[in-house]
């Protein structure tokens, strides 16, 4: 399979403190790839190195079969985590300037995206007159305006309300269907779990998990039960951990525990509305991995 991004043995330290340690991964063409990990894990640092905004101490990066050049930057779209725009410019001025920096005459595409994102009526407003959510959408459009082959989205959902979150999600899926290579970086693992083909999980600058979401989840075994219930959950033999959300819970079973036995105990304890043997969530796997290290 053709590779869009190849990262090998990437390291970076600030003031003697190592932020990214010997990281290697690659992203196939047309893949939706998740770079996940908690805040401060080094995700943004990796992205900045991908974009040649900061230089790695060691390691190699190849994007679209090229080392980083000005040409190449035109093929990459970037939505940074720290959002910001020129406050005094209008929406159109902003989009046209940022498009021009990618060597693109982008007026039609800008109007198309504004329409799609429900921002068309605001095109001549100043950025400072827009709400935060609107500014976010403008910034997302700015990342896509030059029709990039490779799109990097750093925390694309932060600060969005559910309606806009769905809008952005649909847009990402659409871009994925168009065959764009997409890197989503986030600490909200449940958000990417269903959307990403493969993930790379980092913790304290080190890679801890790498592979397809399904593969990783099955690797960690079918030892999770999703439960909908009414009543009071107490300790259950054979259950190592209960993530209880009131009338919904995720039960992590002991190694070798039989789910049928658990169901019997549960049936006696609470009223069971739904019982599903499931693979663990990425969140759970992550916590397990981190606690294990």
């Amino acid at each position: 399979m053709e590779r869009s991004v190849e990262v090998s043995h990437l390291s970076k330290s600030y003031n003697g403190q190592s932020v990214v340690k010997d990281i290697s991964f690659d992203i196939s063409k047309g893949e939706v790839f998740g770079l996940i990990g908690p805040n401060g894990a080094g995700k943004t640092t990796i992205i900045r190195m991908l974009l040649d905004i900061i230089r790695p101490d060691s390691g190699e990066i190849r994007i679209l079969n090229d080392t980083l050049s000005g040409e190449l930057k035109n093929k990459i779209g970037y939505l940074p985590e720290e959002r910001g725009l020129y406050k005094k410019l209008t929406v159109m001025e902003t989009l046209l300037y940022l498009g021009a920096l990618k060597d693109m005459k982008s007026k039609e595409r800008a109007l198309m995206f504004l329409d799609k994102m429900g921002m068309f009526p605001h095109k001549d407003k100043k950025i400072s007159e827009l709400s935060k959510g609107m500014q976010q959408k403008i910034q997302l459009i700015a990342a896509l305006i030059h029709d990039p082959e490779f799109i990097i989205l750093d925390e694309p959902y932060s600060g969005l309300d559910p309606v806009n979150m769905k809008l952005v999600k649909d847009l990402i899926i659409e871009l994925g269907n168009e065959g764009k290579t997409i890197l989503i970086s986030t600490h909200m693992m449940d958000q990417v779990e269903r959307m990403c083909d493969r993930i790379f999980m980092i913790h304290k600058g080190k890679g801890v998990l790498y592979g397809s979401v399904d593969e990783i989840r099955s690797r960690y075994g079918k030892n999770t039960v999703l439960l909908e219930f009414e009543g009071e959950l107490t300790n259950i033999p054979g259950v190592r951990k209960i993530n209880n959300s009131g009338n919904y819970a995720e039960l992590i079973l002991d190694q070798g525990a039989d789910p049928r036995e658990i169901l019997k105990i549960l049936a006696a304890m609470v009223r069971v509305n739904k019982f599903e043997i499931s693979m663990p969530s990425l969140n759970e796997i992550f916590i397990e991995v981190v606690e294990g290290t």
Partner: protein
Amino acid sequence: MSKWATIAKHEYLTNIKRKEFLFVTFGIPLFMFATMGISFLFMGIGSHDVGYKIGYIDRTGQFETTNFTKYTNEEMARKDLLDNKLTNYFVIPENYTATGRILIYSSKKNFADNLKIEEQIRTFLLANLLKNEPPEIIQRINKPIIGEYYTLNDKGLTNEDNGITILLVPIVFSLLFTLSIFTSSGFLLQGVVEEKENRIIEVILSSVSHKELLQGKIIGLGALGLTQISMWLVVASSLILINPVILLLVVSQIHISISLLVYAMFYFALGYLIFASIMAGVGAVSTTSREGQQIAGIFSLAGAFPLMFAQFIITSPNDVLARALSIFPLTSPTAMIMRLSLTEVPLYELMISLILLVVSAYFIMELSVRIFRASLLMYGKKPTIQELIKYVRQS
């Protein structure tokens, strides 16, 4: 269009609309003209001699005038002074021709008045002392020299300015020059810090290299500075053209040679380049615009040095201080332009100054790009000097 050109265009167009730019371009020259006009006005008022009533007592019996009231009795004069019938009176003692002593009494203590009164008494004394001489001689003794200065060199004979314009030209010129450099490089600093503060710099750097960004900014804002200077020239020349009296005055008094203009252009471009690069570096390491302005203040102070020492440079343009300031890169643009408009600067000094300026402009620009690259995204934390040196070495 190349990316730096896109950035330059953007910087130019957004900054030219700024209120600060319009204020500096039109407000400050207006203010300067206004203050100058006011001081001329006051000079005019001060030169009227009305209001002095002077009396005198002549103990030699040789001095006569119609301008002053003659008293024979000092008591009378003293009484009139106290009654405000006189503002001053003076006594010519018997031994005056031997000693030159004149005793002057005033109702109020005022230094400026004293000078004027002394001038009047002087004319009166001279007229009396020389009353047997022809009037031309008296006039010549009153003002024995009206100097005209010429420079004789291999290029021939040149008439030099004298009077107030010789001071005005270099001061106004270097003031505007410095103002323009500071405005443009100040905008650069502000722009970098603003882009850092609102985080858009990350988006821009995902499209262009650090160098392109810096080049674009420096060129765009440099063009802004040139626009500013051209606007001043246009306003100044239209003012001159409107008023034929000023036109005559200026044409007869000011000699700005073509070579001076060419040098001024060079010094402006290089001086701006140095300050702009410094401001870009300062912008990259500072976390807020206030902090940036504080650090930048130190460099601006160095740049304003020649203006602070303007009177020394003007009175002795070939002294050590003037020469040193016209060679040191941060001060040389302004200081050298001042000297060039005042005196003949040896070619080797001009060359040393220009070469130093070019070399340091290049190095400071390189250094700024590196600092820019190394410390741009260290939000909320100012790097220490040691860290900076390390980053600069690394990149």
